[in-house]
């Protein structure tokens, strides 16, 4: 048994994300970089042996996910929840401008966003900071779902403006 196998066992035993600090707590003497190297090695092994899954870095941890090509089969077990275009727009505003108020969101979109906010809250992709006005921000769940390590991984929004001005 080597440390890499222990990392594998820990991530395997968790449904969802296992936080990096929990892994480091369970295996003394391992660094964040060392952990990343071991996960990369595990993923190489999975790839070489044609496994249907890999370990993915999301938000502040690691989790086992299926490879994309198996999605059509897995979908037959459980129909995935779909977000409307409106909800996706609201989510984009909160991801880029958050924490922000409903007024900011409505201002950018030019429409009322109440029902989209409800749906995003229900899916736990956003949360509320109490206060007046209430501020909306994206959750770790959002990072997990969209495969991001942090909000800094989002493409720079000014990039879109540049693309547009080249039209």
């Amino acid at each position, binding site marked *: 048994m080597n440390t890499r196998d222990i990392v594998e066992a820990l991530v395997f035993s968790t449904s969802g994300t296992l936080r990096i600090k929990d892994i480091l707590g369970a295996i003394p003497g391992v660094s964040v970089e060392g952990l990343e190297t071991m996960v990369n090695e595990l993923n190489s092994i999975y790839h070489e042996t044609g496994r249907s899954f890999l370990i993915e870095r999301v938000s502040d941890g690691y989790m086992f996910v299926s*490879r994309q090509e198996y999605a059509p089969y*897995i979908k037959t077990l459980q129909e995935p929840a779909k977000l409307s275009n*409106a909800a996706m727009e609201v*989510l984009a505003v909160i991801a*880029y401008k958050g924490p922000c108020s409903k007024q900011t969101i409505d201002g950018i979109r*030019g429409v009322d966003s109440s029902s989209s906010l409800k749906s995003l809250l229900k899916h736990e992709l956003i949360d509320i900071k109490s206060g007046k006005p209430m501020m909306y921000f994206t959750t770790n769940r959002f990072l997990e779902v969209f495969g991001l390590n942090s909000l800094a991984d989002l*493409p720079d929004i000014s990039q879109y*403006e540049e693309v547009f*001005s080249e039209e």
Partner: protein
Amino acid sequence: MIHEQGREFILHLSSFEGPLDLLLYLIEKNRFTLENLEVCPIIDQYLRHIETLRRLDVSLAGEFLDMASYLIWLKSCLLLPVNALESEEGEFNPARELQEMLMAYRAIKQASRDLSSRPLLFRDRFPKGSGAEQNDVAFMGMGSLMQAINAIRARTQKYVMNVAAIRFSIQDMMKRIQTLLKGKQRVSLDEVIQKGDRMETIGALLAGLELSKSSFARLIQRGLFSMIYIVRR
């Protein structure tokens, strides 16, 4: 009415996310760019669309009318001599304001498309244990708390009995549950209930019992006062 190649066409507002989306569509259709936007023809087209829809007695969302009145104001500003505006508001440029609003919206629209096209969890990538298992309801932060409070409020706000009670057809409710169960293995009673009043709740429960009697589904409740689930057999 809008004329295009001699024919009239009417836009369906439901295909637009809002007035800014409609404006972007009109700009693209006219092959204008946001950077060198000719504001007046776009304003005219927008107002003509809204007027047509109003004449057809289509109920318009408030935001489309708000935008119409904003655009009328904007056009009136543009028709004023430049000096009159400058003296009042310094470097006030209403057309630029509209342009910036549209650019910000377009950037967000593009960003939301890019987000959607990422490999999404539960659509393209599935975490271990997510297949046939229903995700447990986790308490997560203020959002869940507010939703729980709203759910309670929705359930308990009616203290006054309506004399003319609304009768729910059990048959309709059974159909509603069967439709919901087409997509998944089980639904909670809360998902079946739309308005949340007592009659509807009773109707949903009776419909669930009927379905259980006909062996289409069974009802599951883990403990006293916990959520009742209707599970497809």
